[in-house]
């Protein structure tokens, strides 16, 4: 058994603390810049940590990625440019609050929810990692398929005023996802001979284009603001605690959801945030309303899920060495290299190491609060600069971010194309978020469908054969029916639509 003392003594290393704080600052910075994502933050860290001692190496990535995932919310709220695909789910809600002047509220809520979601997942990790890992391993392609289709139904919740346009956007994303190598045979599809399209349209360049660049284009056509925006005024921490108490159920729910979804290998923070957002939208009476309270509930729920999924991803990672998402894949590799071989032997032979790693989760999510507030204030200060100066800098970062994903210039060209597409879409009231959802879930759904078909040799009944699979299947079908029925119902005050596009109708 491992004692608290043993863990604390490992943590009390000055070098380790320094590494944690440095990576936290680094993660916040990278995450807060539109165009740069949490995955990029982790990938750029690899050359440095690969030759570091094991514990600081793992601590660095854990901290940096947790900070970056939270920090992706900041540009989403303040600039309407989500820093990560997961933030895209609630960008409109958050930005809506900011436009009403509730900056501190929106950001503070997101911060405290993220921190709590992360803490919750750290708790689950510490107490139940091995047992939960076994459950996670029971998921085969059938279960993943249903999870993906269930995730698709979330698109209807961000469809905006028109279900048809939302569906069009969703199918656009799904269609874009088919470009590239076929997941089964590897035969190139719709690539027009270009090797750059062999992996399809990358999620990050499309995100940067559809959200960030299109927003820049929109701003370009409005009168250019030579003054800055007012910074988030007033206290952030204490009011956010009060907000937390009001929305404690939503946050707890988001945290648990996020942990569970994150624990499924291959289902990352993107899917976790979306599903949590959708549940908050439908299942909670508060979340359903178009009010500030409703928006806050949804933001907090999804933010909590976002960060919780990072912790959840470590469940299969540490117990079986199976990565929960792309970031944990990097972490597992680093752990192997450092001789911390994930697996039950790790829990048996060196429990102090693994529980120290879990403890770092706690530390990282606690450190998030003060550093996050600093980051938000800093961001607010930067926004006092004239927009005319900020927009070009944001564009440079978008270019840099797109390039750095895979070190290809092709991605840079893509943000231009998708930027224009996003601009046209929004002008015509086609929501952007379903397209991103389609791009995220399309490959997963196709792969799982195809591999399941291959395994069953064409027998469709396999989708309802397995216990978990059939339960998920029934839930999914019901969710879709419910979602469509609710959208087709005549609009009443409480029935939710996405907040009206602040830029639509600009003539």
């Amino acid at each position, binding site marked *: 058994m491992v004692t608290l003392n043993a863990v604390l003594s490992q943590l009390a290393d000055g070098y380790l603390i320094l590494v944690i704080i440095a990576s936290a600052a680094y993660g916040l910075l990278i995450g807060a810049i539109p165009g740069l994502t949490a995955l990029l933050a982790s*990938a750029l860290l690899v*050359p440095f940590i*690969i030759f570091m001692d094991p514990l600081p190496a793992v601590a660095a990535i854990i901290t940096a990625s947790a900070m970056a995932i939270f920090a992706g919310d900041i540009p989403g709220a303040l600039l309407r440019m989500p820093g990560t695909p997961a933030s895209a789910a609630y960008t409109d809600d958050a930005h809506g609050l900011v436009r009403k002047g509730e900056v501190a509220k929106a950001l503070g809520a997101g911060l405290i929810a993220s921190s709590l979601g992360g803490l919750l997942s750290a708790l689950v990790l510490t107490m139940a990692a091995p047992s939960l890992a076994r459950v996670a391993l029971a998921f085969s392609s059938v279960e993943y398929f249903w999870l993906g289709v269930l995730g698709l139904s979330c698109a209807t919740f961000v469809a905006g005023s028109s279900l048809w346009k939302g569906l069009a956007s969703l199918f656009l994303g799904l269609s874009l996802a088919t470009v590239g190598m076929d997941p*089964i*045979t*590897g035969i190139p599809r719709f690539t027009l001979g270009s090797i750059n399209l062999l992996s399809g349209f990358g999620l990050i360049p499309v995100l940067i284009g559809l959200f960030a660049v299109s927003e820049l284009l929109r701003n370009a056509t409005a009168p250019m603001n030579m003054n800055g925006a007012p910074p988030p005024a007033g206290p952030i921490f204490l009011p956010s605690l009060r907000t937390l108490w009001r929305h404690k159920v939503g946050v707890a729910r988001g945290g648990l959801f996020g942990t569970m979804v994150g624990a499924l290998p291959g289902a990352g923070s993107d899917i976790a945030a979306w599903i949590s957002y959708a549940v908050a939208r439908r299942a909670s009476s508060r979340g359903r309303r178009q009010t500030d309270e409703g928006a806050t509930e949804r933001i907090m729920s999804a933010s909590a899920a976002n960060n919780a999924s990072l912790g959840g991803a470590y469940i299969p990672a540490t117990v079986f060495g199976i990565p929960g998402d792309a970031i944990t894949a990097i972490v597992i590799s680093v752990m*192997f290299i450092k001789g911390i071989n994930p697996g039950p032997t790790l829990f048996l032979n060196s429990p102090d190491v693994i529980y120290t790693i879990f403890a770092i989760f706690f530390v990282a999510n606690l450190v998030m609060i003060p550093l996050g507030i600093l980051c938000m204030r800093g961001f607010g200060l930067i926004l006092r600069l004239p927009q005319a100066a900020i927009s070009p800098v944001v564009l440079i970062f978008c270019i840099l971010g797109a390039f750095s994903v*895979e070190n*290809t210039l092709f991605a840079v060209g893509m943000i231009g194309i998708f930027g224009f597409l996003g601009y046209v879409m929004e002008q015509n009231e086609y929501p952007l978020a379903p397209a991103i959802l389609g791009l995220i879930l399309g490959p997963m759904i196709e792969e799982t469908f195809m591999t399941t078909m291959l*395994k069953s040799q064409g027998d469709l009944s396999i989708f309802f054969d397995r216990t978990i699979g059939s339960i998920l299947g029934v839930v999914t079908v019901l969710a879709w029916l419910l979602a469509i029925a609710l959208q087709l119902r005549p609009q009443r005050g409480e029935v939710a639509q996405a907040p009206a596009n602040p830029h639509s109708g600009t003539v």
Partner: protein
Amino acid sequence: MNKLTSASIIALALGAGTATAQDVNWPSQPVQMIVIAGAGGGSDFTFRLLSREMEELIDQPISVVNQAQGGGVVGMTTYVNAEPDGYTLGQLSPFAQYKLLGQADFTSDSYSPIAMVNMDPAAVTVAADSEFDSLQSIVDTLKEDPASLAISCGGTCNASWDIPFVSLLLDAGVNVGELNLIPAKGSAAGLQELASGGMDIVLSSLPETDSLRDAGMVKNLAVFSEERLGRYPDVPTVEEATGEAVTGGTWRAVSGPAGMDPALIDRIEATVKQAYDSEGFQTGMEERGFGAVWMDSDALSDFIRQHEEQTQRVLNELGS
């Protein structure tokens, strides 16, 4: 403008020019090493380890660039199309399947192979409670009914892990066109399917099964190498298990674009050899469970031709 300034400007301009010619003062500027996989993965680790050792021998930084798009096609294209001046090198790994699948046009003539540094043989793994106890029993079962087992390729199919396996089955007389080969998003995903009962067999490297094997959820049946691996003395080779001497798996080598000067290749090869032999590289690879295997540029040239032939044979039989 005084003479010193104009002289330095001219020197700078000349420097920018001569670096593109065949440089016998290699290296006089930073070298790019293109890795065709993402950061933090096995290939990335191998090449970063190697580059770090190489950097200490030459005086210039080696910039490791990850270009994993297209399953490695984009990265390979980048260095294959670069100037053969030794300043853009890259990872050479199994490539023949790209052309056969219509993804790219690489042949063994597209490269100037320099040296192999790593080879990880494929292995056959089944669930711990599987009815199969040996590779031979699997071969026999597949001979009778090729489509009866769900086989995970441990990644994309028509690649490193399944090609030696199919090669073995071809030799044993199995009708491989009917095999049920299923791709996965990496070996970890394939192993997860194994553990959840969704698959019968997983093809991957041995180190990738460490965690699940230690947890008692999977067992290794055979490895596609010439001799048993030091780290896994209990796993029989394919030859021991079935009598057919088939080897294969993934391998990683340093290469440049075609047309590099032989003297330059020798120089780079010597540097790589020194880095390979260094303690840092050897212990690093061993700790990670990767097989450090050396092949110089001539041996590598022959090897990649063999790889092309083996891949061609298998893919034709599979009907792609």
